[in-house]
């Protein structure tokens, strides 16, 4: 036995816990804050791990592996489960063979997402159990329990984490020599269980309900749910990271700490309620525990005092406790120094980003620069509407580029562009989408545009990687999650194969070609696609011939500042290029757009 004490993130702990639980297949599509789970699984060479094309496929591959009797882990961010909802609901109906755990990483506070949603509701929707860890030790420990429950109750198990659990590191004690149970792999033919014809599905639904009854009985006695005896005046019901905040805010209170958060244990909750004078629930986002407990006829307070959106913290919990008259105001009063009105530091496209040139070109078309105000708003339609998508390039929304008008969800740019054109807007419409996002959900949009003859321009920004989430491979990158060379799926052939006639491929750092390609595509009377191809600056370590500004030639016109490059700065009224940040020959966009030819390499103006 070798006990080991490590500082692990929640995501690292989940991967290690799954591995030690005997998981042999892991699938995911990258998405903050869930990405590192699959990255850590992929590092184990005695299992199969893949980046799937999208979350729906990840869930389907996971379901197939489970049918083969193998323990399987599927992980995704909260909105990924929206994409995967169809196979998830199917999995909930058919049940499993090998244990199937689905990690849903919610993002309260919207650190890196397009929205905030509480995926605990998916447990109720799918009539499946949900487990929620509060720290990395629980993330590790609860994995083993999740697989046991999945197999015993013939159900996928939702494993819900939040950003603050996924990305916080805390101490985990693990036995590195844990015996990893190897399950036998076989598919047993069982059409009433696996073929969801209406007649078969009707047989499965009663099973789903009876399984919830059995799971409720489990919830009453499982060690995942614990009571911590304390002061009988206040009883706190909590789970996840909310529990950590509550423990800090109420050091002496009694706690009902829930690890199995669906279905809930009515008897245990009643017993706890009877022990304390006042019941208070601390949970992030929706009043999920609260409403379920109220439905049991138990009096409990929570969301009338605690914010329904954003992340909690100890201070917010203390503040709510004052409002609920659980603690006196003095205990929560902390003098906070005002920070004043400081300049913000929004994230930006990197210096040398291959997306910059295309967005600079787009920002100059259709009088966007004149029509849009500083916040990107205008009552009047500009000559060009740009529908956007999910990735680093969404950052082109910010000034100075202001080159994105919509962003909804993965792949939506193309469908939205079709909708705008079919509705009859006067402006030209361009959809901008990255290569990984195109593989994920853009292909069906392109097919729709071809099929329905939509005269839009689709600009595919191809940097060969899934950059925003940290450079994961994808079908177009030619490499698998476990580093194996695979066949590259060719975007050009996909687009051509769908029937697009007007297709151009340009180098993202050749601004003249980018401009003429985008302009001719927009002027075209047919559906047009421009693939703008260039290497992601973050993965490029070569930075030769940093650009500099010839101060004698520069007339401070400010055009170079309009590309939004982090390296181009202004001090004492003069523009200069920060050498530590400039990518040099790998980019050179500023040099190409300078009207005075005042930008060049050391000793050489352009």
């Amino acid at each position: 036995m070798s006990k080991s004490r490590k500082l692990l993130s929640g995501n690292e702990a989940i991967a290690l816990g799954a591995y030690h639980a005997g998981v042999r297949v892991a699938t995911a599509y990258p998405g903050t804050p869930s990405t590192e789970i699959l990255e850590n699984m992929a590092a184990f060479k005695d299992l199969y791990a893949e980046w799937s094309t999208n979350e729906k496929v990840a869930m389907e591959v996971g379901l197939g592996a489970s049918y083969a009797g193998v323990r399987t882990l599927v992980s995704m961010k909260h909105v990924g489960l929206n994409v995967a909802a169809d196979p998830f609901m199917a999995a909930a109906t058919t049940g499993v063979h090998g244990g199937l755990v689905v990690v849903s990483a919610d993002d309260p506070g919207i650190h890196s997402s397009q929205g905030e949603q509480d995926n605990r509701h998916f447990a109720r929707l799918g009539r499946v159990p949900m487990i929620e860890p509060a720290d990395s030790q629980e993330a590790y420990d609860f994995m083993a329990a999740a697989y046991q429950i999945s197999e015993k109750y013939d159900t996928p198990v939702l494993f819900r984490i939040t950003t603050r659990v996924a990305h916080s590191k805390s101490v985990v004690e693990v036995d590195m020599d844990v015996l990893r149970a190897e399950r036998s792999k076989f598919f047993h033919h069982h059409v009433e269980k696996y073929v969801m014809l209406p007649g078969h599905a009707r047989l499965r639904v009663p099973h789903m309900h009876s399984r919830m009854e059995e799971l409720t009985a489990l919830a009453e006695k499982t060690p995942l749910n614990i009571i911590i005896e304390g002061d009988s005046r206040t009883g706190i019901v909590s789970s996840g990271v909310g529990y950590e905040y509550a423990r800090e805010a109420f050091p002496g209170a009694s706690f009902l700490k829930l690890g199995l958060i669906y279905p809930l244990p009515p008897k245990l909750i009643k017993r706890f309620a009877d022990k304390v004078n006042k019941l208070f629930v601390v949970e992030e986002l929706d009043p999920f525990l609260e409403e379920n407990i109220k439905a049991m006829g138990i009096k409990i307070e929570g969301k009338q005092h605690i914010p329904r959106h954003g992340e909690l913290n100890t201070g917010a919990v203390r503040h709510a406790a004052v409002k609920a008259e659980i603690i006196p105001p003095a205990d929560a009063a902390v003098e906070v120094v005002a920070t004043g009105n400081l300049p913000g530091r929004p994230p930006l496209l990197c210096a040398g980003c291959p997306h910059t040139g295309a967005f600079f070109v787009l920002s100059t078309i259709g009088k966007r620069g004149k029509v849009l105000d500083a916040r990107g708003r205008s009552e009047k339609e500009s000559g060009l509407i740009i529908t956007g998508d999910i990735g680093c390039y969404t950052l082109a929304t910010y000034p100075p580029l202001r080159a994105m008008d919509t962003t909804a969800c993965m792949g939506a740019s193309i469908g939205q562009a079709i909708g705008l054109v079919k509705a009859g807007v006067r402006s030209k419409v361009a959809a901008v989408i990255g290569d990984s996002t195109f593989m994920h959900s853009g292909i069906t949009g392109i097919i729709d545009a071809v099929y329905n003859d939509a005269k839009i321009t689709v600009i595919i920004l191809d940097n060969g990687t899934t950059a925003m989430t940290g450079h994961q491979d994808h079908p177009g990158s030619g490499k698998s999650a476990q580093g194996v060379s695979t066949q590259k799926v060719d975007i050009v052939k996909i687009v051509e194969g769908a029937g697009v006639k007007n297709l151009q491929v340009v180098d993202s750092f050749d601004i003249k070609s980018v401009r003429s390609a985008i302009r001719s595509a927009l002027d075209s009377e047919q559906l047009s696609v421009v693939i703008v191809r260039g290497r992601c600056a973050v993965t490029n370590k070569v930075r030769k011939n940093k650009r500099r500004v010839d101060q004698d030639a520069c007339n401070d016109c400010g055009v170079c500042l309009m590309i939004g490059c982090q390296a181009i700065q202004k001090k004492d009224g003069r523009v200069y290029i920060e050498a530590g940040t400039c990518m040099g020959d790998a980019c050179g966009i500023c040099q190409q757009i300078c009207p005075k030819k005042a930008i060049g390499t050391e000793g050489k103006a352009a």
Partner: protein
Amino acid sequence: MKSQGKQDVLMVGVGGQGIILASDILGDVALDIGMDVKKTDTLGMAQRGGSVTSHLRIGQKVWSPLINTSEADILLAFEKLEAARWVHYLRPGGTVIINNLAIPPLSISLGTQVYPEDEAILGSFRRVTKAAYLINGTQQAAALGDVRTLNIFMLGYLSRFLPLKITDEQWQKGIARHLPSKILDLNKRAFEAGRGAAAGVNI
């Protein structure tokens, strides 16, 4: 919360300055000496040149991974504007160490906003503490041969202010665990330089 040996260290700066690595090293070292540790960083979109924060909490038992406002014992700022942005996290009488470096956000270059003066930044800290140190970390890291050693230099400076018993050997081990051997010597020198720079400070 105020238990023996409790240290809340907030590290702040701009994406790419190596802040998360510095706090990873301190976290591991604190774990090695038997403390409970929790840490949480900004990741994801904020990495693209945005402001970065790393909350590191050390104690006998740590619950929340997030440091509370007005409770940080030490604020280690890799950039001046970011120091000002997080002043409200420092506890009265806490220590703030600020690298004398300005990385102006684009809004400054575009002329829509103004970068705060040093005096305004230091002034906001003086209302909270006397222990405010403005240091030339970037210059000294550059003098060592690579400006990217700034994070380890800052860590060395910080090490003088931690009321935790950590031996030189434990620091070395922590640094070695997180850096490739090719640049290990350089970074060990950066740590010593940072530690040396704080030697004259009357803590």
